[in-house]
């Protein structure tokens, strides 16, 4: 593993239960990086562009890792992914796409859009903790945070 990284993790998730479970999982996985949460695709875009309530980069720094749910209100996860991966600077931010079921999403299409990982959330908390620990540790330690 590379050097520890204290970059912000951005979670794009509309379900508050899932947000809470992600917090527990990160805690149990002993990942101490600060977590920012937005509840839909439009907020995700605003955050990444530094617009509206996310103008202050000090409070809302660019993330070093994004957990992205595909099923989102207003603007979909695919749209966010497409915008991000076509951005000249932001496209290097690793994106882990999460789905909560065996929904037959076109995995190939998601990877083509630029997702770095595509994961199905396991039903049991213990397994979920294990998965978050493995992927987050890999992507955070292996990547540098973008300069502000």
């Amino acid at each position, binding site marked *: 593993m590379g050097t520890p990284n204290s970059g912000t993790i951005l979670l794009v998730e509309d*379900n508050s*239960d*899932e947000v*809470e*479970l992600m917090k*527990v999982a990160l805690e149990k996985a002993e990942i101490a990086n600060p977590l920012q949460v937005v509840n839909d695709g439009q907020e995700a875009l605003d955050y990444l562009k530094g617009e509206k309530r996310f103008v202050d980069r000090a409070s809302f720094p660019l993330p070093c890792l994004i957990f992205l749910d595909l*099923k989102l209100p207003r603007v979909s996860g695919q749209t966010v992914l497409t915008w991000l991966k076509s951005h000249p600077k932001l496209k290097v931010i690793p994106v882990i796409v999460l*789905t*909560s*079921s*065996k*929904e*037959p999403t076109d995995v190939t299409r998601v990877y083509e859009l630029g997702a770095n990982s595509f994961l199905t*959330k396991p*039903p*049991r*908390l*213990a397994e*979920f903790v294990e998965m978050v620990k493995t992927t987050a540790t890999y992507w955070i330690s292996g990547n540098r945070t973008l300069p502000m």
Partner: protein
Amino acid sequence: MRLRTHLTLLVLVSAAPLALFAGFLVRRDLEAEEDTRRTGTRDTVRALTLAIDRELRTSFSVLETLAAAPALAEGNLRKVHELCATAVLGRKGVWIILFDSNGQQILNSSKPFGSRLPNPIRDTKPPGTDPRYPSLRVGGPELIQRVLATGKPIVSDLFVALDSGEPKIGVAIPVLRSGGVTNVLEMSVEPDTLLQIFRDQDVPATWTASISDERGMILARSVDPQATLGKPVSADLAAQIARAPEGEGLGRTWEGVRVFRTFRRCRVAPWTVAVGVSTELADSRERRALFLLGGGAVLSLALGLAAAWFIGRRISASISQLSRSADAMATGQGAGPELTGVKELLELRRALIAAGERKHAHDQLRDENVDLDRRVRERTAELERTIKELEAFSYSVSHDLRAPLRSMEGFTSILLDQYAPLLDERGRNYLGRVSGAADQMSTLIDRLLDLAQVNRRAVSSQKVDLSAVAQEIAASLGNQAPSRPVTWDIAPGLVATGDPALLRTALENLLDNAWKFTAKHPRGRIEFGATMKDGTRVFFVRDDGAGFDMAHADKLFSPFERLHTKDEFPGTGVGLATIRRIIERHGGRIWAEGSVERGATFFFTLG
């Protein structure tokens, strides 16, 4: 070319050789007739000359008999006159004259004895003296002079008699006494008597028979004898006679009629008999025949052409009607009225109608097939749409159901993990029940999705080693509870053809069931094998577990039907339904046998 043109050509082609052949026949017939006519005229001419010769010889004989009469030698002239009159008795226009050596008539049988009589030598006159007969001499001096000079019998030319003033011919012989000619006996014959010869020989009325003397003057003629008597024969006949004693050829009669003529000279007298047959008559016959033939040909041709036109029009109309019928049938209308008298066309019409009906039936069938095809496609598309919608629905449901389950499971496990000390035993028990219920619901959702997937996915066809798959599943189950005393009896080398994933799911469910239902027995035995039944290989999974009542066997394979409570044996009630769908999608069949507490056997075939 139109049909009518063809028929017209046919008529022309048929008629032409017929007309030629008929023409040939007529021509030949006419030629044969011409031959017959020539032969006929030749024979007639010959018969006429012979008859004339015979007549003249008879005359000579009569005269010779008289010359030898003793009365003449005795100079008994009265007696001689009597004899002469007797010799020509009953013969009209014939009389006998006795001349002396000076040419003086001594007696004349046509006149009373002792009449004053002329002397032709002395009284002769040049031709043209008698206005009725300008070409004839009046009196016949040459006859007497020649007989006196030559002492031989002679037949004269035509001349006008001095005694009667009418034309006559004379047959004269000398009367010889002691080496010299003392007298001449002459038989005078009026030319009219020669006409009797024509009648005797049956000369046809349409022929022109004539007798002419050495000078070419007409003695007798079968046609218009009075007008032509003593007239010269036609110039061309005179020329022909001058060239040869007999012959034939074309010429013109005295009246100017064109004739085919045959002539012959008599032997006794220097006379010529000629018979002419009008070529116009023959020509007119030929013309009439040709006219009849031509008219007939034209008439039959016209009839043929009319028939061709009429029949052609009729056939054309029939064919047109048939064409219209065919067109009408093509557009689905009837064949139309029957309009033809031609048998073949009627047959064709019947065939067309039959074909039309067949085509109509065929079209209808095809339309129905097309319609059926379209309906099947529509239904299929509808079904596919429905299935897609159902899939979308079930995934949406599964996603939406799974999310709260994750929350329930996640938070109960956090409570049990981190807040357990704050709860009493009962509280922890309740949390455990929540967790278990969530777990079971999660499994149920997964199984339902499996069942849906069995229905949805395409079944591949590969070799699958069922024995090996069963071994793997058995090992996996054994690992879950290593302490359970279960004996596995898996027949080796059972290879089947089918979808590897689906067959694995089926075996998993079957062996899982067997594993589950043997759990309450102290010892368990699970068997996987195959047997032959009616030539088909039947696989089976047998256990000696809880079994079931055969009375409920029909419920086994329906989804959500369970024969045991969840507390007795956990389960979703979907597993056997899934197995049945998998087997059925492989074209196989599944059934079960069992009894309570004596185990169960599941049999299945694959295609």
